[in-house]
């Protein structure tokens, strides 16, 4: 555990320093965009969050496959952790997108292929986290979420293709200024530097969530052991339902 704690601290320090440096790079090093000016700077966070969310959901699917093959709880923890971090990043994408689009396109939202498929992706991984809440039995929950994570990931390319074909068949309501095409070298450098910072943030979130899941699992094992012994003999620090007002109620209950 202490090795995990050290890793967590190191990761946090790296992510914080890198994020700060990326912030400086975005606002002071990256050149001013000729038509969009300062609002264009949101692009560095927006695009890198989207890329990192892609990594996150690949990790979810991979962890799901590994879990179904090896049945190690660690794979399940990795899957949940990456799914939550990926959902957080996708939320960043969905919030920063309209903030940029409103002044540049003149509208908050358009049913363009990328926007729509990101939105659908976001809904799918909310559903993924919902099943985890609603399936009580731990081993069943692990299998079910692994299976849905894989299925959702397999569905993503079809969603993207379907929406792109659907949209190209209709007139585009707005033509976005083709970002990413012919990017200035400094801009490109800042973009990839920011991506590193976002990946570090993703690592911090995933690691923290993974540890939480590990602690929950250990608590669950201790509770089971305690119940097997008739609820006595093993000092479990987190009672399943502490009586209201009892001193034990102040002890953190990792189950909820």
């Amino acid at each position, binding site marked *: 555990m202490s090795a995990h704690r050290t890793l967590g601290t190191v990761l946090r320090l790296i992510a914080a320093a890198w994020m700060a440096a990326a912030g400086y790079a975005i606002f002071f090093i990256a050149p001013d965009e000729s038509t969009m000016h300062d609002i264009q700077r949101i692009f560095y966070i927006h695009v890198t969050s989207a890329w990192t969310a892609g990594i996150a959901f690949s990790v979810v699917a991979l962890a799901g496959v590994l879990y179904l093959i090896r049945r190690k709880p660690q794979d399940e923890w990795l899957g949940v952790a990456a799914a939550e971090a990926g959902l957080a990043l996708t939320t960043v994408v969905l919030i920063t997108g309209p903030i940029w689009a409103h002044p540049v396109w003149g509208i908050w939202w358009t049913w363009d292929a990328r926007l729509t498929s990101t939105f659908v992706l976001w809904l799918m991984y909310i559903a993924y986290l919902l099943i985890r809440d*609603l399936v009580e039995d731990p081993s069943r929950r692990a*299998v079910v979420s692994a299976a*849905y994570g894989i299925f959702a990931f397999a569905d993503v390319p079809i969603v993207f293709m379907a929406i792109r*074909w659907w949209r190209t068949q209709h007139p585009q309501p707005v033509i976005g200024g083709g970002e990413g095409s012919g990017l200035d070298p400094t801009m490109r450098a800042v973009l990839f530097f920011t991506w590193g910072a976002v990946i570090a943030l993703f690592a911090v979130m995933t690691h923290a969530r993974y540890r939480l899941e590990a602690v929950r699992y250990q608590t669950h094992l201790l509770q089971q052991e305690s119940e097997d012994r008739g609820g006595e003999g093993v000092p479990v620090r987190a009672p399943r339902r502490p009586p209201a007002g009892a001193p034990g109620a102040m002890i953190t209950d990792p189950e909820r």
Partner: protein
Amino acid sequence: MATHPKLAANPASALASLAPSSPSIGLWSAAFTILAKEVRTELRTRELLVTTAVFALMVVVLFSFSFDPTHEEARRFGPGLLWIAILFASSLMLQPAFLREQANDTLLALRLAPVPPFAILLGKILANFLFLAVTECLLLPAFAVLYNVSMLASLPGLILVLVLGTLAIVVPGTLFSAVTAHARMRELLLPLLLLPVLVPVLIAATEATAAFLSDPPELPSLWLKLLAGSDIIFLTAAYFLFQPLLEE
């Protein structure tokens, strides 16, 4: 099944009792046995088909209030409306597939049966396909009459779209009904899991139907390919994912 007339009332145990005499049953014959069992159960109550058909008709009628169902409008919105009605109906009707097995823990008997595990899912997929197809057979004429859409000219194409689209709805739907059978709030959870996954199916089926219904009809080969591709990908994923789901 004919050799066990008394046990036919409880097909799961009938399957299990076949074990000593025939150690392995082929995928398709087992799947058709389960299909027969599902159909028999449904014919005894008819509750699933009746509620789903009424619900789908209700959706079609309610949609007529949200816009003017004149001829021109119906051509534009009709295909999407039809598929939304089918999607809503399916998200209602797919849940019982595995829930029915819980009451007497008959899923355990199915798991003990000496059949390939995928046969259980396949049988239920076929049954759900049949039930949804029956609902569509009722829905389609009602839709054509109520919204004044003539579809006789392009009926073969429409049937192709309906078959591909229904399969693409039913495969993940049946798989997820096995997923949600043990969850709390399962009636709400199934649509939440299913509908985002079915976004491409809804798009492709709607566009293909619109193309066949347009004047003159067009052949939407792109959308038909997408539907067939989804069918294949969903079936493959279901094939690999169902066994671990069944074991838990």
